[in-house]
């Protein structure tokens, strides 16, 4: 494969900075909510356009990079919009636009306090997320990873209730520890290899670390990114963080933050260790074990949750481990499925969270057992919910089917039939914990409490429109994987580069 000349451009930097730069503007226009939200939209629009402009190069397999200056001797603050980074950035920045619309409906509908802080932190979180996506080396990655922790802390603690405080402390404890483990791992790699730059196929040569050290190093890195990816037993912060306002749960705790973790796993597996070293050392089995167990356990726990957001949180934990398991299988098909699931799960799960928020704001209900008959009053919301549920269970024509199909193919390709069993069983469990909600809402008569406070009509269009858009997107991507955004083509290119970079013969 010919080496791709990487072009230099400030686009990645602009994409990251634009939402950081509007933070002061948001803070200053706190008294004029419409202007304040205008800033958010402007930033979201510019950000998305920047990422779109990076797309053509990424489709060619090239990357757009920018090294600003040295962070520490030998390690630059380098931004590289490689295909995988663009892929993640596309998901995060695209969904931010939809979420911004939804946030307005939710925050105003719910009469939340401190909305200025909310929107400012949200914008900062998106800067950090794109930073994670475009980080060209591990130290830059850590920088934005920690910034993401800090920026999302005010969002988790938003309600400032004792419960919110507890959750936020827990979040900090988990996330800061994870960040430190990453720093330790980065220092170790740098001390031994002298580089931290991500490269397809890995940067750790044979023999630099002893076998035992490699296992420790791998555990450090996977623990570091695994906390945000919610791999059990590192997941407890995520259900607790559901105390945050629903737009936060939707974009950050289903897309940006947790996917940064999942994205980190892909970086560690594909760009630091590389498939060859992973399988040579049996590291793939460790990751696969944890991920597989997480998928099943999380699904079973989700069955028992009555609070809708908690159930969604456990479902998220399970689905994040799809990505981890796909990466651990190392087969090209599984990696493709893993990358596709990054975007597929994002679109579907954000729909479900949007629905949960709409139900909460409009019908004032958060427990699933009280949803009887709600579907008749809120057909659009529950229709979207049904689409998302179908997709997460892996039923065509929703996009969840495609990623799952590739994950299953990859399981067979890598000869690990047990992974195939995990994916299929998890599909059943997904159906078992999602479908009853839809059935309850559409087919059961309203119960006594519902009669006392009947729910009429849909939530505000500011909330219903976004969730319809994302549900539609889920179906469209299920039918046309490359339309309107070429996720499938990107994923295939990324996998090719990882496989080529990992093969013993130098790829040029």
């Amino acid at each position, binding site marked *: 494969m010919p080496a791709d000349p990487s072009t230099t451009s400030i686009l990645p930097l602009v994409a990251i900075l634009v939402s950081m730069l509007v933070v002061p503007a948001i803070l200053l226009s*706190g008294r004029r909510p419409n202007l304040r939200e205008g800033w958010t939209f402007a930033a979201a629009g510019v950000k998305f356009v920047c990422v779109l402009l990076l797309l053509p190069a990424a489709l060619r397999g090239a990357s757009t990079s920018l090294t600003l*200056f*040295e*962070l*520490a*001797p030998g390690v630059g*603050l380098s931004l590289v919009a490689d295909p995988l980074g663009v892929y993640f950035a596309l998901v995060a920045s695209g969904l931010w636009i939809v979420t911004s619309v939804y946030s307005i409906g939710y925050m105003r509908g719910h009469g939340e*306090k*401190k909305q*200025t802080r909310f929107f400012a932190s949200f914008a900062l979180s998106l800067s950090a997320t794109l930073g994670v996506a475009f980080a060209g080396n591990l*130290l830059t990655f*850590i*920088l934005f990873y*920690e*910034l993401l922790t*800090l920026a999302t802390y*005010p969002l988790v*603690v938003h309600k*400032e209730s004792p419960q919110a*405080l507890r959750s936020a*402390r827990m979040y*900090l*404890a988990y996330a*800061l*520890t994870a*960040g*430190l*483990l990453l*720093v*330790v791992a980065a*220092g*170790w790699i*740098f*001390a*031994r290899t002298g580089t931290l730059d991500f490269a397809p196929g890995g940067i750790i040569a044979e023999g630099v670390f002893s076998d035992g050290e490699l296992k420790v190093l791998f555990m450090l890195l996977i623990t570091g990114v695994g906390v945000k990816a919610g791999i059990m037993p590192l997941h407890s912060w995520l259900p607790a963080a559901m105390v945050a306002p629903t737009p936060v749960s939707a974009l950050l705790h289903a897309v940006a933050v947790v996917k940064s973790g999942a994205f980190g796993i892909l970086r560690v597996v594909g760009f630091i260790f590389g498939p060859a070293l992973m399988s040579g050392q049996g590291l793939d089995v460790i990751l696969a074990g944890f991920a597989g167990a997480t998928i099943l356990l999380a699904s079973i726990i989700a069955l028992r949750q009555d609070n809708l957001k908690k159930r969604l949180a456990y479902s998220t934990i399970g689905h994040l481990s799809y990505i981890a398991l796909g990466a651990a299988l190392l087969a090209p098909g599984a990696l493709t499925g893993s990358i596709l699931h990054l975007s597929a799960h994002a679109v579907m799960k954000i729909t479900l969270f949007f629905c949960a928020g709409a139900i909460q704001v409009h019908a004032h209900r958060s427990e699933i057992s009280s949803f009887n008959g709600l579907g008749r009053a809120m057909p659009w919301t529950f229709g979207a919910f049904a689409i998302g549920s179908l997709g997460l269970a892996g039923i065509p024509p929703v996009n969840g089917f495609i990623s799952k199909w590739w994950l299953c193919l990859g399981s067979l390709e890598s000869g690990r039939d047990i992974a195939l069993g995990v994916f299929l069983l998890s599909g059943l469990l997904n159906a078992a914990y999602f479908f009853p909600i839809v059935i309850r809402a559409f087919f059961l008569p309203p119960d006594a409490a519902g009669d006392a406070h009947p729910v009429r009509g849909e939530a505000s269009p500011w909330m219903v429109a976004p969730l319809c858009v994302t549900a539609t997107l889920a179906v469209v991507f299920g039918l046309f994987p490359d339309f309107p955004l070429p996720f499938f083509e990107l994923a295939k290119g990324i996998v090719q580069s990882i496989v080529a970079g990992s093969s013993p013969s130098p790829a040029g």
Partner: protein
Amino acid sequence: MSSHLPLPVLLTFFGAALFMPLAGLVHRRAPWVVAVAGSLLAGGFALFGLLHVAGHGEVRYSVGNWDPPFGIELVADPLSVFMLVVLAVIAAATLIHSREPVEREVAARPALYYASALIMLGGFAGIVSTGDLFNLYVFLEIAALASYALLGANGPRSAVAAFRYLILGTIGASFYLIGVGFIFIETGSLNIADVRAIIEVVGLTVPIGVGAAFMVAGIAVKFALVPFHQWLPDAYTEAPSSSTALVAPIGTKVAAYVLIRLMLDLFPGERIESALHLREILGVLGAIGILWGSIMAIPQTNLKRMLAYSSVAQVGYIALGIGLGTAYGLIGAVLHILNHACMKSCLFLVSSNLETKGRGVKIGDFDASLRRDMPVSSAAFAVAALSMIGLPPTAGFFSKWYLLLGSYEEGRWFFIATIIASSLLNAVYFFRILERMYLGGGDEPARRERTRGAALLATPAAALAVGLLLLGFGNAYLVSEFIFPIVSGP
């Protein structure tokens, strides 16, 4: 001027101190003006020195034209000028800020107060620029005596705390002096470069070994290295807030300088290390200090006391870096001198602002009104706290990064675990305060209550907080231009 290099800085501090009694007669605020002007001028000289030495190499100046080893020599090498800049920056920030706090707390004789402050700064500047072991002792005592006065100027409680510090400090200085005596017995010289050359010829004899141990132990007291740290929390907590803000960031750092100078220039090499294990001991005590200081900081109810224990932990980082002895370890130690001076100065300036505005420093009293009424100070505190925890891209992250790399080079897993644990403990005690500061309260607007000199109080802390971010982003430049020459030698 460049041939006299360290001298102008010393003369500026001491000269400004001499003017104080006169300035006190002119106007109530004249001493403050003279002190600020002096520290700014000294800062200018120090900065010039830093650039000159980086460009043209070190400058040695023989006082009174008596050539070393018989005369006293002032040396402006990369480490000295680096320390002078740190001193001058912190001095300028604190003195600019000190107008209101000093009028409030030591109203009686600001001239005397500022004279002591400048004499102390002059003493510190002397310590870092002298090339003579005995002369270093003299400056050590000058600075110490002045600092007892500064720390004790806040009523009887602070006088008692300062007296404890005086006793321990004197013991430390005496140990150092005894050590110098032993070295002199064996080598017949007091000039650092000369003594080193002689040691290389005569080898490690018993008196030299004993002398080295005495000197290091004596300085360790001044350095507040565990287990010699007892004096520090009391002295810093009871002292006037502006004294703490001046002494805390640089007092221990000057001692750190002496340790680095001793280990780097006087007793280098593996032979002495294998006989005395000085580096080993410093490193392990540093690691213990990091943990002990961080743990003790958590239950404190007084902000100043908490920051003081945090200082105990932070000097541990420097000791750890010296103990590693590798290039990365020393880079980490030297960089942390600068970083920690800026962070701690910023934090103590905010605590001084709290006292000056009548808020008090009881952590239990902090609430959201702080952020509303003192937005700049609160933000500066938050940045410095994040830097203390060591989150990138603040300066604090990078000194830890170099220390980590050094620990890997040496395979010191215990040190790595210590650095990690300490970051988490730091997060515990700083987020406890940030939660109180930034959570709770509603959206109500700030109370527009004008305090005299509010800008003077807030600006230095804010400048240091911005500096912490710049130091973080610019650390690669700093390290390669100014710090690497220190550890790699001429």
